[in-house]
Structures are given as C-alpha cells and as structure tokens.
C-alpha cells in the first residue's frame, strides 16, 4: 500500500516537473514548479526528513515561486530561437545518460553510515533533542554562521543591483480580513516552529520563512509601504542575525577556548537565543530579497 503511494508520488513529482519545464507559458511553468515543490516536500516526509520538508514547502515552493512570479512580469521573454533538432537530440541523450548514471551511482554507493552513530552518541550533550537542530546549531554551527553570511552577501548584491520595487495594487476589501487573521497567525506559527524545533521538526529557517510570508502579505496588500526608514530598519534586523551569531562565536571562544563550543549545560539557552535572533533576521532578509531595495527613496510612488 505504502509502496503504491511512493510510486504514485514519485511519478507525480517527475510528471509535474516535466510539465513545468515543458511549457512555454511562464505562469503555467511557475505554477507547475510550485506544485512540484509541494509534492517534493511530501516525498521528503516519506524519506524521513520532515525538517527539510517544512523548509522545502515554505522556501523552495512558496518563496521561490513568489520570486519567480514577481520576475515573470518584468523579464522580457527571450527571442524564441529554437535550437536545431540534432542539438536537442544530443542534449536529450546526454541527459538520459546523466540520470541513469546518477541513479546507478547513488543506488550502488556503499552506505557507509558514519554520522548517525556519532550524532546519537553526542546528542545528549547538544542541549536539544532534534538531531537536525543539533547538527545545525551545535555540531556544525560554524557552517550555519557562514550560511547566514552568504544570505547577507546575496542581500548586498540585490541592494547594489537594485531591482524595481514591486508596486502593491489595490486588492479590494477582502484583503483586510485576510491580513488581519493571516499575519498574526504567521507570527504565531513562526514562534511555534522556533520553540518546537528543539525537540521535533522545526527551527529558525522554517520559522523565518513563515514570518517572511506574513511580512509579504503586509507589503503586497499595500498595508505597509517600504519607506526609506522601514528599509533601514529592515537592513538592521537583517544584519542583527549575523552580528549576534558572530558575537556568540567569539564569546564561546573566550569562554571555552573553541569557536561555537557552548559552555557545559547552557547549550540549550545559547541555541535558543541564537535561533530566536536568526528567525527575525532570516525573515527580514527574505522579505527584503523579495521586495528589492531601490537606491533612491520611493518619492515618486
């Protein structure tokens, strides 16, 4: 029974991806991509990775889909120069070989499971009981610190390039009750995911993405206008995550002699503090990445 479900789901993933990539209608293609993302999230749950599934649904399908849709109206379609049939056949052959080789290589790779034993052995001293959170914010916290730095670099790049700011449209009266319920619910769900991330699936990234969704409802509904003042506040919050994480790294160095090795027994508090700030910071960064940041103040709006 569950095997039939798996086959159906895997088929659905490949089919929707093919539909998304096969059509020339951009909006249809993005819609297909979002559906693919949601089905992939479901298959990640089947693969025993609910943390990743939450992130894929919120970020991979939701925010990326919104970003693509935003740009679909701005980018001019490329001149439809169809590549010659012989080229396409060769590329298709290479693609089929690539897929086959990849599947074969992954399937036959020796499953040297080195990490699970190590993780479960030290999980008790990590301060949390969700192994993914333990890896992200304790065992490999250094990676996560750099990841936040990468996000911030992308934000700076967007700021330099300065794409146009999306103009909110008048969406009518029914946006108000929607925002009145959905925006606080986003804050609630973000807090809930942040808190439960210590023991069950959830954490700062998923929480930040959901909070960013709430902020985008405010922006696109026309309730909050990105004034220069709001923009500089947003940048401050975005930087705050990186700053707090870096300060935490330095102070753990001072306290314990190792970067991001938390003092004995206090790991949970450290992790929770860093995660709470990261949630706000990730939300601000994702929101600003979506809205773009004009160099000029928005006088003419």
């Amino acid at each position, binding site marked *: 029974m569950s095997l039939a479900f798996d086959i159906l789901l*895997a088929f659905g*993933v490949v089919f929707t991806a*093919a539909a998304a990539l096969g059509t020339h209608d951009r909006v249809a293609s993005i819609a297909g*991509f979002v559906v693919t993302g949601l089905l992939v999230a479901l298959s990640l749950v089947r*693969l025993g990775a609910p943390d990743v599934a939450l992130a894929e649904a919120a970020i991979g399908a939701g925010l*990326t889909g919104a970003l693509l849709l935003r740009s679909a109206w701005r980018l001019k379609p490329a001149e439809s120069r169809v590549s010659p049939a012989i080229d396409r056949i060769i590329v298709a052959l290479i693609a089929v070989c690539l897929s086959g080789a990849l599947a074969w290589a992954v399937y036959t790779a020796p499953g040297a499971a080195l990490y699970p034993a190590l993780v479960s052995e030290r999980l008790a001293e990590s301060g949390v009981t969700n192994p993914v959170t333990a890896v992200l914010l304790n065992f490999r916290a250094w990676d996560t610190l750099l990841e936040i730095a990468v996000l911030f670099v992308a934000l700076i790049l967007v700021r330099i390039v300065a794409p146009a700011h999306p103009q909110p449209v008048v969406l009518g009266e029914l946006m108000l009750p929607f925002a009145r319920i959905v925006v606080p619910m986003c804050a609630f769900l973000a807090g809930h995911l942040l808190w439960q991330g210590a023991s069950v699936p959830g954490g700062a990234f998923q929480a930040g993405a959901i909070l960013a969704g709430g902020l985008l409802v405010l922006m696109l509904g026309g309730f909050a206008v990105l004034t220069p003042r709001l923009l500089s506040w947003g940048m401050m919050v975005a930087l705050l995550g990186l700053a707090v994480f870096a300060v935490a790294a330095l102070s753990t160095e001072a306290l314990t002699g190792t970067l991001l090795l938390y003092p004995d027994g206090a790991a949970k508090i450290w992790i929770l503090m860093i995660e709470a700030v990261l949630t706000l910071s990730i939300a601000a960064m994702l929101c600003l990445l979506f809205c773009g940041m004009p160099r000029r103040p928005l006088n003419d709006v």
Partner: protein
Amino acid sequence: MTSELIYICAGSGLVGLAFYRLATCRDMLLRVLSLNVLAVGIAILFLASARNAGMTDAVPQAFILTGIVVLVAVTAALLALAEQIDSQRDE
C-alpha cells in the same frame, strides 16, 4: 530499500529534465527555474541515499536545509541580475 530506489529514480529524473532544459532554453526565467528543479532533484537523491534502516541521517538533512536557504538567496540574486541585464539591453 525499494522505496528508496523509487525516490532515487525520481531525483535523478528531475536532474536529467533540468539539465536538458538548462541546455536548450534561452529564457532567463526558465533557466533559473531549471536550476531550482536541479537542486530539488539533488536534495531528493541525497536524502534517499542518507536513509539507513528506516532512519535518515541528520547530517545530510542539515546540509540540504542549508542548501535550500542558500538557493533562495541565489535565486533572488540571479533574478535581480537578470532584470538589470534586461533593462540595460533596453537602453
């Protein structure tokens, strides 16, 4: 083991499809979209191979989670660059 094999096939199928589209398509938006599909396919492959006796290894999970967040930042940056190229071409 069979259910992992199914998802390995799906993941490598996504990689193949995205590769074909990346190579044959000139549209910037569709290229960025294909890049995202490629990353999703690799995530499925990675996680399917990380499964062992009903448990999924936490370290690859953390890597993929990091990858998803970095990918959305990369997508935003690429789209901003593409929009800039488009508007430069206009002038």
